[in-house]
């Protein structure tokens, strides 16, 4: 059934179709509508889940951890300050290898107080062991929530599905909401049978003191699971495509084959950049685009395969790692290290705190990079008004 819905409601439908069994969440703009609709689904019986109201995001993630530890399919949603307040328990979910799915609406961190989009909230949580997916459209948001459960349950790691505040969260567009039967075929219940779980019939102690003899290997295994997740995410996306007819890949190259300049984007800037790629092609400039959908684990092999086709790579970051540069730019430079032929990398910062990103902005970025041999700084700030 196709319906015109917001990105927030696309998340809710995804969590419902995935047959979430436990939802614990605390409201925060611009996420609130996600859990509002889910609580209505629970109240009306459209979703057979336990909805746990909590007093903070820290408690929301704590409740999710306990629920997931019993083997239940568990979901939450948050944004910005809420995600930051969860931070301690985000570590715990990953360390305990619990496949919780969390939708994060990308919102800038305060102060200055903001409700508008940028990626610093989720990118501040990139090193915890959570998988991260950045979405371009409401359809992709819904589909990625459903995929996230399957990927997380296969590699036993929590998964964050990320959408831009307002640009997706409050924007309505057509979304194909699949039949429950199809989603059930893709993602059956019960979820994964955890090797160890909270079970009153078979009690265990969890979270005990872990000596240096054991802790190191636990971390090693999280990294192994992250490595494994690259292939798993590709396979799950293929399977999703076979059953539901839509796939996204972990990255998506667009007109990259003969490109001399490749833009690298994530989130909704991708859509606008597609238009610019097409218009640049009409002008005769060989511009391509690489959309990064899965950022953790970083698709290093794909980056090394696709980006060196171009002489120039222009990374567009809607975030800033203070004291260095944009996060995607850093990681792309690191991924390409050691290749015999290195493209010149331009790192642009744009759209921080929800500053609108127009096609003209991206055109001007492409124009600058096309005409400039090498960037004169590791950060190129776009549109700063001083």
């Amino acid at each position, binding site marked *: 059934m196709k319906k*015109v819905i917001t990105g927030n409601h696309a998340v809710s439908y995804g969590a419902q179709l995935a047959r979430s069994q436990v939802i614990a969440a605390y409201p925060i703009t611009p996420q609130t509508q996600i859990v509002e609709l889910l609580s209505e689904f629970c109240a009306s019986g459209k979703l057979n889940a336990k909805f746990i109201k909590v007093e903070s995001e820290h408690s929301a993630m704590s409740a999710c951890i306990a629920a997931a530890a019993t083997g239940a399919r568990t979901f939450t949603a948050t944004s910005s300050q809420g995600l930051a307040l969860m931070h301690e328990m985000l570590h715990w979910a990953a360390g305990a290898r619990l496949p919780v799915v969390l939708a994060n609406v990308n919102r800038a961190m305060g102060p200055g107080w903001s*409700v508008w989009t940028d990626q610093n909230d989720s990118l501040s949580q990139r090193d915890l062991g959570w998988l991260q997916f950045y979405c371009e459209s409401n359809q992709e948001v819904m589909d990625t929530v459903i995929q996230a459960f399957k990927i997380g349950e296969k590699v036993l790691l929590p998964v964050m599905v990320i959408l831009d505040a*307002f*640009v997706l969260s409050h*924007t*309505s567009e057509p979304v194909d909401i699949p039949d429950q039967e199809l989603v059930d075929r893709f993602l059956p219940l019960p979820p994964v049978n955890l090797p160890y779980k909270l079970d009153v019939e078979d009690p265990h102690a969890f979270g005990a003191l872990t000596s240096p003899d054991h802790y190191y290997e636990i971390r090693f295994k999280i990294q192994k699971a992250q490595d494994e997740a690259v292939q798993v995410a590709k396979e799950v996306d293929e399977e999703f495509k076979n059953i539901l007819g839509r796939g996204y890949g972990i990255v998506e190259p667009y007109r990259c084959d003969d490109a001399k300049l490749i833009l690298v984007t994530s989130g*909704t800037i991708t*859509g606008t950049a597609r238009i610019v790629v097409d218009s640049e092609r009409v002008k005769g400039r060989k511009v391509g685009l690489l959309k990064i959908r899965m950022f953790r684990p970083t698709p290093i092999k794909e980056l090394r395969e696709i980006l060196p086709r171009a002489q120039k790579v222009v990374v567009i970051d809607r975030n800033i790692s203070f004291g260095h540069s944009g996060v995607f730019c850093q990681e792309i430079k690191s991924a390409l290290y050691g290749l015999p032929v290195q493209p010149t990398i331009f790192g642009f910062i744009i759209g921080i705190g929800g500053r609108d990103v127009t*096609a003209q902005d991206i055109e001007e970025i492409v124009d600058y990079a096309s005409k400039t041999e090498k960037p004169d700084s590791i950060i190129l700030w776009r549109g700063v008004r001083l």
Partner: protein
Amino acid sequence: MTEIRFHGRGGQGAVIASEIFASALFKEGKYVQTFPEFGVERRGAPVQAFLRFDEKPIMLRCKVYTPDHVIILDSVLLKTQDVTMGLRPGGWILLNSDKEPREFSFPNFRVATIDATGVAIKYKLGPKTAPIVNTAVLGAFIRVSEIVRLDNIYKSIPEYVPVKIEDNIKATGEAYEMVRF
């Protein structure tokens, strides 16, 4: 691609109007994208909503800067807002007003007026002091612009309006007939 901008005040239903409009267009096979002015909405404060539609999927993800038409839910906003900013020549300006279109001077644009406040009060849509004029304004706009069929607006109203569905449909139809242009 066609782009429409709504100017209203928090509580008048501009966002819901844009959603009903989008849903009706979608029923006619169009690709649609609609969103409120990004931010925190306060009752009575000026708000905007945006609508895009096209024959092909919409990739553009920025605000609407050069609308084809504008819909103004409160004509008092003319005093404080530049409602024609970026408006493309020849575009419609639909005003919620009991005045005649010729009483407004907007060279290069087409003007239509509807007493949506009167219609909303008649059907008791919202409190009398702050009537919800969105469905009446929509009925008027689709008559002059001929962008979407009236029956598809009727079908979309129940998807977004939680109460007084029949009265909202009547208000839409009445404004469709009453609009002056």
